[in-house]
């Protein structure tokens, strides 16, 4: 008789296997999934302790915490997948406070029947994104829901970070006269994802811009600790994000259409679908609002970072009791750039 020493006599059948309800039941099948797939991929000291929480040292001070759920469809898209997106998006939300990201948590909600091969691909990509960013996934959770009660996989990540002393970036800090900068072209992510929707019936070579912006932000904050606002224009795009900030800060904004960087292919796809690139989601871009005099220096820093090469000053804040975001069009007229009404297209992040 062989002694039953290994906890899991057979390894997971990654190639042909599927997630079933036992993988979420809290028993040995779940332990195996966690061990062979998640812990193997994310592999870091905190996670490897296998506790219900990850532990690590933090310096004291101002901390930020953020979370986002990722329900994107399709799961794999040009330039990324739900796994890397779930890391980038949350690292970015931490970075948008000017903070240095410390660690991430990851909660998976998986639909029964999901191929283990896809799960592995996603987790591997997520682990790579986390390692590349230097922000470990220190704790996680897996739930399995019945077929028809989910959509393949949903991932919710949370992230924390520490804000360097003296930095007080917040959406309510924009002041009339401040410059509005963006770190690059608008709408790449949304268009890349939409190009994968068979029903939309178009093709393009645009890649998602999904990326972790914290190193660029660190350089920006180091140079200009007094940056007023940072925010990533994700769902709802540049337009909704600027409206959000205008409302929080109680200012108006005026931008110039000709200054907003948009790739021709993104414009083409938007024309085709009747969309406005100002409302299309980004996952590797930021909006920076700063004192006008800091703008050139910040633009230089962004442009010298690989993720900010197309950075541009697109307008400025101004007094406006109505907090309108307006835009001077290429034709020379003015228009309001309003919140997104309804949804642009569902499930873009």
């Amino acid at each position, binding site marked *: 008789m062989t002694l039953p020493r290994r906890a899991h006599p057979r390894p997971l059948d990654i190639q042909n296997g599927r997630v079933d309800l036992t993988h979420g039941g809290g028993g040995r099948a779940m332990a195996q999934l966690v061990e062979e797939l998640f812990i193997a991929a994310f592999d870091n000291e905190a996670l490897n302790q296998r506790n219900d929480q990850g532990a690590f040292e933090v310096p004291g001070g101002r901390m930020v915490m953020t979370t986002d759920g990722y329900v994107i469809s399709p799961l794999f898209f040009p330039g990324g997948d739900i796994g890397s997106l779930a890391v980038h998006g949350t690292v970015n939300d931490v970075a948008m406070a000017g903070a240095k990201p410390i660690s991430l948590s990851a909660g998976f909600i998986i639909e029964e029947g999901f191929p283990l091969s896809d799960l592995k691909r996603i987790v591997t990509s997520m682990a790579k994104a986390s390692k590349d960013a230097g922000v470990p996934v220190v704790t996680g959770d897996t739930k399995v829901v019945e077929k028809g009660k989910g959509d393949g996989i949903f991932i919710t990540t949370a992230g924390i970070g520490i804000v360097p002393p003296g930095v007080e970036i917040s959406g309510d800090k924009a002041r009339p006269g401040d410059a509005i900068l963006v770190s690059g072209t608008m709408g790449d992510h949304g268009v890349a994802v939409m190009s994968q929707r068979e029903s939309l019936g178009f093709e393009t070579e645009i890649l998602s811009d999904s990326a972790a912006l914290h190193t660029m932000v660190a350089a920006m904050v180091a140079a200009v600790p007094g940056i007023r606002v940072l925010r990533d224009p994700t769902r709802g795009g540049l337009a909704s994000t600027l409206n959000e900030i205008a409302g929080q800060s109680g200012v108006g904004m005026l931008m110039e259409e000709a200054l907003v960087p948009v790739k021709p292919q993104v414009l083409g796809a938007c024309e085709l679908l009747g969309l406005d690139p100002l409302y299309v989601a980004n996952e590797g871009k930021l909006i920076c609002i700063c004192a006008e005099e800091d703008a050139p220096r910040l633009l230089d820093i962004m442009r010298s970072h690989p993720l900010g090469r197309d950075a541009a000053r697109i307008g400025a804040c101004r007094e406006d009791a109505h907090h309108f975001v307006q835009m001077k069009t290429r034709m020379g007229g*003015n228009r309001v750039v309003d919140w997104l009404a309804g949804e642009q297209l569902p499930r873009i992040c």
Partner: protein
Amino acid sequence: MKYIDEFRDGELAQSIARAIKAEADPASTYHIMEFCGGHTHAISRYGLEDLLPANVRMIHGPGCPVCVLPIGRIDAAIWLARQPGVILCTYGDMLRVPGSKRLSLLKAKAEGADVRMVYSTMDAIKLAQSNPDRQVVFFAIGFETTTPPTAVAIKQAQALELKNFSVFCNHVLTPSAITQILDSPEVRELGTVKLDAFIGPAHVSTIIGSRPYEYFAEEYQRPVVIAGFEPLDVMQAVRMLVRQINEGRFEVENEFARAVTRDGNEKAKSLVADMFELRRVFEWRGLGMVPYSALRLKEPYAAWDAERRWDVPQDNPGDNKACECGAILRGVKKPIDCKLFGTICTPENPMGSCMVSAEGACAAHWTYGRFRDLEKSE
């Protein structure tokens, strides 16, 4: 993008603007109605109002097929979507439009009705093919532009002998609507409203051609310029109309000659003529009952007519009494004259046709132009 970028040149826009300013007689006012929502949208989105002199006033017409559909037809579409076994599909524009009780197809979907967005009538056919045990109803809306694609789909359903596909037809005709406006008492008899000229439809005209407008120009003595939907097209059309008015002409001119001919698309026209017949009367939201202004399927295509297959309800709850759409569409009032505008009527909660899609007069003004009211009022 060729044929797009050239028509969005800011410098040219400014120079056409200068030309208009130069040619417009400072002593008179020019009331120009752009019939199409496409033009309304271009004017608002590109802020063209700022490029026009104050005495050239644009009046936003009823030319958005989403806006003009009466609430009762949306209720009917929702009713259809709720019939057992039905998949109701339609263009994305229709999903958020509220019917009565603030219900929309999107909300009906949230409540469990099977509603799908399609980008083409070909998608609707595919949906029927891949769901043989379901009834796929295509909620067809649109002007002359959008009718031929519906006709192609029905032809294809016929060829494929699809028994589970039908069309809830709401295709409407632009000339009848223009007539209705010109026949309104304010315009025709009272003279309280001036409508000096029309910008004619762009893409509608690619199908029907410029010839149908010749009757109006003649009968109502109004100049018409058919124009594309790019901002320079609109600016140029305004300039051509100002010139016609100045010169006392009332001709049909074609600014959109790159895509529109006098006779239009014969192939599409004959396909539509084969398959559809005029309804005696059809209600337009904001305009009321308009005779011979809509199409329905002819008898030989009855098998694909959702209104013959189901006993679709015909009630039509009216708009909010305070809604001023009718007056706005006839140029009698402006959006800000409506006391619901921006308070309880917004694009998220439209109370009348003009707030329904971004091409409606109220929605375009709210979404793109409302800063002007506040600038004026301050």
